[in-house]
């Protein structure tokens, strides 16, 4: 079982600068991998990702929009026995703090799923990384209102039984301890917020999977996973937990010093995709960051889980353009990354890889 832990001592020996580079995922070991494939995303399998405009958190409107999205993605083709919705509830913050997905999205999602699949077991499950008090978590985030209105269950994954799951070709952990609720589910929905992140550049559907690691094993915060480099860990996790559906709340997004202390950015979109990596690619591009300069996509490529989004964009024509999100201050290289030419991006990539090679 040592393989769910790692030799952290050798990381402590790194200088502070090297540790910082390591933690944001710059220590990329695959020297011979052609990362420039991330510029055009060709020759990867494809998955549908749909995007729609949604200017408010009014529940009826969200439900209408979600119905369109799930219809485009032909979600009714699935025959789930039990649906686990995993919202990204990292801290016990009010919806107005813009840190967690809005409760009306969750409410409307459950209603939409019931209209597609009929009455069936649906649970909301989360292993919050910063809040041990799950009662407080669901109270502050207003998830309690949703679960009581819709009579569904909240499962604190931090307290769940766990199963040990092996990781194929691991970048970090050879095994993960995964909550039984997640391991036994045949339909997982990763429901995240569109935000920047000071360790991974962006936090979307893939990063949300960190909330499937029980803090009873990984700590509050999930220090074991942080030390191994979050970008690598979430790619390993994405190879083990594969959500059937990823939904991103991009109505009120967050830019700058995310995922908690950033500033609100009105984006007015809802995004849904059948593959978590492809969905994250779409959102990254909308934030006007180049996937080439985001380490988690390097690792996804190395791991062989890259998926090219087949985008179905339902937004009005005049809104079909990327916005420019402010990156977190410590990941300043993302500034205007998509405004740079391809050759400039490739030059910049070389500098990043060189910086990380010291770790």
């Amino acid at each position, binding site marked *: 079982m040592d393989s769910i832990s790692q030799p952290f001592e050798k990381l402590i020996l790194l200088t502070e600068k090297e540790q910082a580079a390591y933690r944001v995922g710059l220590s990329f070991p695959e020297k011979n991998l052609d990362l420039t494939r991330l510029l055009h995303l060709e020759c990867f399998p494809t998955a549908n990702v749909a995007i729609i405009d949604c200017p408010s958190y009014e529940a009826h409107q969200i439900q209408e929009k979600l119905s369109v999205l799930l219809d485009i993605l032909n979600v009714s083709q699935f025959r789930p026995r039990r649906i686990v919705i995993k919202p990204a509830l990292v801290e016990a913050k009010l919806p107005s703090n813009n840190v967690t997905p809005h409760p009306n999205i969750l409410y409307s999602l459950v209603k939409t799923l019931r209209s597609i699949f009929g009455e069936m077991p649906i649970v909301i499950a989360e292993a919050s990384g910063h809040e041990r008090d799950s009662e407080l978590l669901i109270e502050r985030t207003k998830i309690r209102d949703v679960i009581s209105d819709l009579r569904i269950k909240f499962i604190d994954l931090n307290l769940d039984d766990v199963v040990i799951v092996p990781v194929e070709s691991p970048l970090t952990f050879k095994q993960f301890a995964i909550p039984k609720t997640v391991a036994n589910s045949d339909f997982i929905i990763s429901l995240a917020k569109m935000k920047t992140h000071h360790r991974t550049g962006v936090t979307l559907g893939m990063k949300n999977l960190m909330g499937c690691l029980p803090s009873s094993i990984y700590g509050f915060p999930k*220090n074991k996973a942080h030390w191994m480099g979050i970008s690598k860990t979430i790619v390993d996790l994405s190879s083990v937990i594969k959500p059937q559906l990823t939904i991103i709340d991009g109505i009120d997004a967050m830019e700058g010093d995310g995922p908690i202390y950033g500033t609100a950015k009105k984006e007015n979109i809802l995004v849904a995709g059948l593959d978590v990596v492809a969905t994250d690619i779409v959102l990254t591009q909308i934030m006007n960051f180049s996937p080439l300069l985001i380490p988690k996509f390097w690792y996804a490529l190395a791991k062989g889980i890259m998926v090219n989004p087949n985008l179905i964009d339902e937004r009005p024509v005049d809104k079909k353009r990327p916005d420019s999100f402010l990156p977190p201050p410590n990941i300043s290289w993302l500034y205007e990354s998509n405004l740079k030419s391809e050759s400039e991006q490739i030059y910049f990539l070389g500098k990043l890889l060189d910086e990380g090679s010291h770790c």
Partner: protein
Amino acid sequence: MKNLNQLIESVVRFLRETQHNDGGWGYTTENRQSFLEPTSWTLRALAGNSSASETINRGIKFIKISQNEDRGWSNLPGLPSDITTSHVILALSTLGLEENLANEGIRWLLLHEVRKSGWGWCKGSDGFAEPLSYSILALASTNCLSENERLIDLLLSYQCHDNGWNCHVPNIHEKFLESQPALTAISVIALFNSKINLQNDILDRVVKRLEEDVRNGNVSTTYTRALVLLAFCKAGRSSSAVSNNLRQALFSSADSNGSWQNNILWTAMGCVALDQFMMG
């Protein structure tokens, strides 16, 4: 439930009934696996209860078989030893049993202190307020703290600007971070249990932080209430109006089966806090 004694009786019954065959407890009644953290809290809750001696013996047996070769413990048996070791030490010292086992745990803790940051959640990683506080409590409970002001200074260095604590390391973030009442309570318990002479104004400020949290409605859930009540008791404020209100809120939110929402950890914590309150 008519009074506190009756509640504690039914809590003890609930805890006895939810013990697993291996002698441990899960976090909730839905767990089939036993974890060392709720097991340790449950043993603390049962300490001194003569009707629970057989249950306690089986719990200790679980602790013994779960010990790793390096003499530490992990939350889930079989995983590498981690900060759960401090919870086990606290349980054993509260019970006043298995001194050798507790000492082995202390040796593990001392060997795994991280220079400059105390204890992290897992071996070798950076320190945080909660694992540091529980380690201070474990050391203090076995008289191994020996006026170790360095650890208390370290804990104080993790304090937020608002005099409380949270799950982060605020001094490495260059921004104002709000404290979390539960984390503040754990740190306050560690400060008062350390028996280190601290300036009164430091202690006053941290207790005031908690009182303000109660007044602002930030202490409204079982987990946080139990820890904050325990902190007030350790700080010698159990007779204050704030403590009494908190005690009443905790008492009246218990379910008729003697649990708080069938959550074994919260139930054990609630019992420890109410017990402490009754002892004044």
